[in-house]
C-alpha cells in the first residue's frame, strides 16, 4: 500500500467516523422517539441479527433476489453480446431495452403483480426487470468499444468466429460487463425491497413496514442499516472480482 493509498483509506475511515458521531449527537439533541441514536440502533442491530424471524425474512427476500438477478445476469449478458455483435439483433431488441431503461420499473410492479400474482415468480420478475437493462447496455457498449484494429488483427491471423469471441470479444468487453454487473446488482437490490414495500409484504420489506407500524424506530433503523451494509458488501465483492479477473485494467503504466 502506497502512502497516498493509506491517506485515502484514513480519510474514508474518518468520514465514516464523522457520520457516526454526527448521527449520535443529532439524535441526542433531537431527543425524539422516532430518531434513534447510533448506539440505540447498534444495540437493536445486535438484537435482531440473533433472531430467527429476521434471518427467515432475509431468506425470503433473497430467493427473489438470487433468481431475478441470476437470470438478469445470464440473459442480459447474452442479449448484450448478441446486440453488440449483430446489427439485426440490435435493431430488433433496441426499442425494448430503451423502454426498460427509461421506465421507472416501480410503476410496472402493480402490472406484474396483477398478471403473475403475489408470489415468488412475480417478485423475481421485478428484480429481473430492475437489473437487466443496465446489464444489456453495458455489455453491448463493452463490445462496441473494442478497437476495430484488434478485430482486424485477429482476422489477419485467421481467427474463426469462435476464436474471435474467446480471444478478443469476451476479454475486450469484460471490464464493461463487470460495470454492468455492478450497476445491475444495485438495481436488483432496489427491486427486491421495492416490491416488498409496495405490494407483496414479505421478507425484509415486511419487517421494515412492521417496525414502522409499531414505531420501533431503533429496529427500523437497524434493518435499513443491514440492507445498506449488505449492498455495500456485495458491491465491494463485485469490485474485488473485477480487479481479479481484469488485472490489466489497473496496471499502472511505467514509462
Amino acid at each position, binding site marked *: 500500500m502506497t502512502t497516498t493509498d493509506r491517506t485515502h483509506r484514513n480519510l474514508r475511515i474518518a468520514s465514516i467516523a464523522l457520520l457516526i458521531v454526527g448521527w449520535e449527537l443529532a439524535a441526542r439533541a433531537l431527543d425524539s422517539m422516532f430518531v434513534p441514536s447510533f448506539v440505540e440502533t447498534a444495540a437493536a442491530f445486535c438484537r435482531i441479527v440473533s433472531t430467527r424471524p429476521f434471518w427467515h425474512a432475509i431468506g425470503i427476500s433473497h430467493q427473489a433476489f438470487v433468481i431475478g438477478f441470476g437470470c438478469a445476469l445470464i440473459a442480459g449478458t447474452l442479449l448484450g453480446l448478441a446486440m453488440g455483435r449483430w446489427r439485426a439483433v440490435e435493431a430488433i431488441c433496441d426499442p425494448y431495452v430503451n423502454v426498460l431503461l427509461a421506465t421507472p420499473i416501480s410503476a410496472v410492479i402493480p402490472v406484474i403483480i396483477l398478471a403473475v400474482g403475489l408470489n415468488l415468480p412475480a417478485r423475481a420478475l421485478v428484480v429481473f426487470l430492475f437489473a437487466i437493462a443496465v446489464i444489456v447496455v453495458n455489455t453491448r457498449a463493452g463490445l462496441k468499444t473494442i*478497437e476495430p*484494429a*484488434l478485430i*482486424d*488483427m*485477429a*482476422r*489477419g*491471423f*485467421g*481467427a474463426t468466429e469462435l*476464436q474471435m469471441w474467446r*480471444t*478478443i470479444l469476451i*476479454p*475486450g468487453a*469484460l471490464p464493461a460487463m463487470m460495470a454492468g454487473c455492478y450497476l445491475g446488482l444495485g438495481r436488483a437490490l432496489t427491486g427486491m425491497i421495492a416490491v416488498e414495500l409496495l405490494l407483496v409484504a414479505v421478507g425484509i420489506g415486511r419487517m421494515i413496514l412492521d417496525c414502522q407500524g409499531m414505531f420501533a424506530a431503533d429496529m427500523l433503523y437497524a434493518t435499513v442499516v443491514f440492507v445498506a451494509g449488505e449492498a455495500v458488501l456485495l458491491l465491494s465483492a463485485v469490485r474485488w472480482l473485477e480487479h481479479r479477473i*481484469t488485472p*490489466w485494467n489497473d*496496471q*499502472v*503504466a*511505467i*514509462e
Partner: protein
Amino acid sequence: MITVRHVDKAFPARNGNAATLALHGVNLTIDTDEFVSVVGPSGCGKTTLLRMIAGLVLPDAGAIAIDGRPVTGPGPDRAVVFQQFSLLPWATVADNIAFGLELRGMPRDERLAIADDQIHAMGLRGFERHYPRQLSGGMQQRVGLARALAVNPAILLMDEPFASVDAQTRRTLQEDLRTLAERTRKTIVFVTHDIDEAVRLADRVVLLSPRPGQVVESLPVGLSRPRPEDLDQEPAAIQLKAYLWRQLRGMQQATSPKSRP
C-alpha cells in the same frame, strides 16, 4: 510473388457522404524477397491496398494473387503489423507474441518457446510478463513485429508501423527492420507517408496518385545490400528523396483548392 491486377476499390456511401473510389486500376508486382515501400499523398488508398493484399478487404474489381493463387482472405503466408500496434491489453508480452500461433492451435508451451526466441531477437528480454500499457510505444511495436514474425510468414505487411513512435525510437526500429530484412529474406510491403523512411528501408519505392489511387511510378532505390551506414551521404538516396518530394508536392498542389488560380 504478389501480383495486383487492375484493382478497383470503392467505399460505400455512409452518413450522407457519397461513395468514394479509393483505388482505381492498380497494377503492381512485388517479387519474392523484395522490400517495397508504398508512398502517396494522404487518403490515396495505400493502407487499403495493403489491407487487400492481407485479405482483410476484397477488391471490387481486378484480382490480387500470391504466387498465382488468388487472395480470398487472410492466410498463414502473410502477417500484418499495424500502426496502432493492436496488442491485446489483457495479455502479457509473451502471450501477445504467441497470439498468432495460439489461433493456429499450437500447444501453449510450444508457442511460448517460439515467442521466447522472438523476445530475445527483439530485445524484449525482461518484459515477458508485462502488459502492453506498461511499455513505451516503441516497445509495443517491437511486440507487434515479434507477433507477426512468430508465425514465420513469407510476406510481412506493414501499415505505417513506426508512425506513432518518437523520432529516435523510429530510427532504431528502422535499422532493426533493415537488418531483419537482410537476414531473413522476407517479402515486405511497407506503407508509409514518410519519404525518408521509404527510401531508407526499401529496395523499391512505389508512388501512388491522389484518390482514386493508382500506381504512378515504381522507383528502385539502387543501394547495395547491406545498406551503407549513413544514407544522407549517398547521392542515389538524396536524389530519389528529392524527386519523391517534388512529385508529392506537385500532387498536393494539384488537388488543393487553395492553389487554383
